[in-house]
């Protein structure tokens, strides 16, 4: 199961549809939507928080949150 937390620095993933229920509303509102592209920009020393770029927004989230959001390593084609 790949989550945002399993991305390596500079790697890109795509948020899976299944995570929808686990994404906190606030993150969703900030653009962290199923299908969106997410890149891991930087990991803080001590592996937490994670600095990501999702859907154009640059955010820092805690590892516990990142672990909840599943990703796919290849793009989902949306209609």
């Amino acid at each position, binding site marked *: 199961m790949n989550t945002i937390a399993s991305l390596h620095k500079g790697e890109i993933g795509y948020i899976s549809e299944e995570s*929808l*229920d686990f*994404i*906190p*509303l*606030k*993150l*969703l*509102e*900030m*653009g962290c*939507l*199923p299908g969106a592209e997410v890149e891991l*920009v*930087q990991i*803080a*020393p*001590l*592996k*937490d*928080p994670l*600095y990501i770029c999702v*859907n*154009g*927004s*640059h*955010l*820092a*989230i*805690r590892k516990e*949150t990142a672990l909840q959001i599943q990703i796919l390593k290849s793009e989902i084609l949306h209609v």
Partner: protein
Amino acid sequence: MSKNDIKVALIGNPNTGKTSLFNQLTGLNQKVGNYPGVTVDKKLGVSKLSSTQNAIITDLPGTYSINPTSIDESIVLKTLLKKNIKESPDVILVVADVENLKRNLLLFSQIKDLEIPTVLAINMVDQMNRKGITIDLSLLKKELNTEVVLISARKNEGIKDVKAAIIRCHVAAKASPLCGINNQIDPDYFTKLKEISPNYSLYELWLMVTQNNYPETVTKEEKEKLLAFKKDVSKLKKYQHKETIYRYQEINKILKKTYIVDKSKAKDLRGNLDRVFTHKIFGYVFFVFLLLAIFQSIFDWATLPMDLIDGTFAEISDFAKSNLPAGVLTDLLSEGIIPGIGGVLIFIPQIAILFLFIAILEETGYMSRVVFLMDKIMRRFGMNGKSVIPLISGTACAIPAIMATRTIASWKERLITILVTPFTTCSARLPVYAILISLIIPDIKIFGFLNLQGLVLLSLYALGFATAIIAAYILHKTLKVKTKSFFVVEMPNYKLPSVKNVFFEVVEKTKSFVLEAGKIILALSVILWFLASNGPASFDNVEKNTIENTANQNFSEKELQQRIASIKLENSYIGILGKTIEPVIRPLGYDWKIGIALITSLAAREVFVGTLSTIYSVASGDENTATIKQKMASEINLDTGKKRFNFPVGMSLMVFYAFAMQCMATLAIVKRETKTWKWPLIQLFGMGLLAYVASFITYQILS
């Protein structure tokens, strides 16, 4: 202000330059007030839209969505839901930043759906070229069905267009929803919801259901009908998720037609800088250096103005005493009120400089990186990455530091930060440390270059900080407070700080310190003056008795007056209080004279020095530390026949001041921010106990 003024609410994501726009629109015509019942600042300003039309602009806290996750954000919800009809806005001015337009439009779409006249200002358009962005403005206006203005608040461009748009919008006074709620989410549910009342838009009703907040005009029956829709909580959550996704779908459709990014043109300054500032080693190194530079600057730059203020107030006090008719009121003025005010103003240089640095760091965007670097470490101690700012601010003064904790969403993390911040060494402790160190620590260099006195001062700072961290850890493990910890911090683009914004921010923070702390310190100074200038029967005869008793000692007039002042203090209510607590503080190495100084420190810690100078008969205004030092150095402890201020006593006193919660003004602020007396009292007694035990151990071990 007149009835004709248009009420405008300024709303937008954080980091969109909303504050810059507010400052450009209102200039110096702004003031900060308070929302009743919550500790959120209400920022208001007047803007001249045209020669005949003014607007009252309220700068609402930045938020990413109407759905709030903190008290700040709940203010936005309440304002938009017209909780208070009289104050509800006529026009909403939404600020978006050109680079994050997609995300900004989420909030915009929610606001449009409330059917309030809205103007969209897209800010930072001076960056458009650099980012390879092009916008089809006329098509965007059409698609959004809104007035849209491209601006650069920082460069003062487009401001006139915004003002004109606000007027047009207000005159047109119509507004239609943008996305609405997608009926496809649950046609049955939403159709029935809309039927509850024709007076509100569907989105408004939906917000009433999900947020438990109602407009002032809602009736009891309507509320009851709404109850039925709230029953299934998980269903509500699901619908909110779907609503958000739907909104983004609509936004994407619109942006596809109107907003183009040519990535090849974009220059990524942020990425390059972040590689350095969030680097696992260099990121911290840089931060530590920055902190040291800030502290050093505060010391270097603040000393001159502080001495200036100190001297000026001493002169004013003398002037008052010699030129006003002799009497009680004059005494109150020259010994209570003027020193009281001076005691507050003297900290302005340090506080202003510290907030200058913090404001600059926040404006540049660097603060978010600090929060990023420090979050994990802070969490181990029950605090949040954002707690760094209050902890650093606490080295100037705990009061604005505690107010700065409002940005921490999780109550437990915020509470712990508030409770431990007073442990950091604030500016008021410095005069106490300074004089005691110069008394008991030899002025020598160890290892040839390290100044011992400086080293001791540094360790006191370290002690304060370490205690804060340890106390936080203990509280973290023992406090059973309900907490919802959710952490999302935006990493904004780096930008050059705007002088105007920084200036306003520093003025605002300094003003709040002076007014909040100042009032309390002044009131306490007045009361303490009273207690020190009056006493029971023996007090009234002091002057006569002293003159008699010392008739053969040939004191000069000045010395006689000083002697009288000292004995008066001894016999005043405070003096009696000091003597009463003497048995309790004797194990710490103190006598009743020091006891008096401890009590007066309740107004402000640095009053310690002034009080001692009175007790030891140093003339007021002669707070030349050399003179006080001489007197303190020659004080004899009558029990031991040796010096009163020896090494153990000095160390014990410094330890006491490091730990004790003496500043009543701080307690008052804690009470206001935590909304209960429980926490400030716990602080008072907890820290007091710690101070007592620690000083006791220090004194006993060292002597």
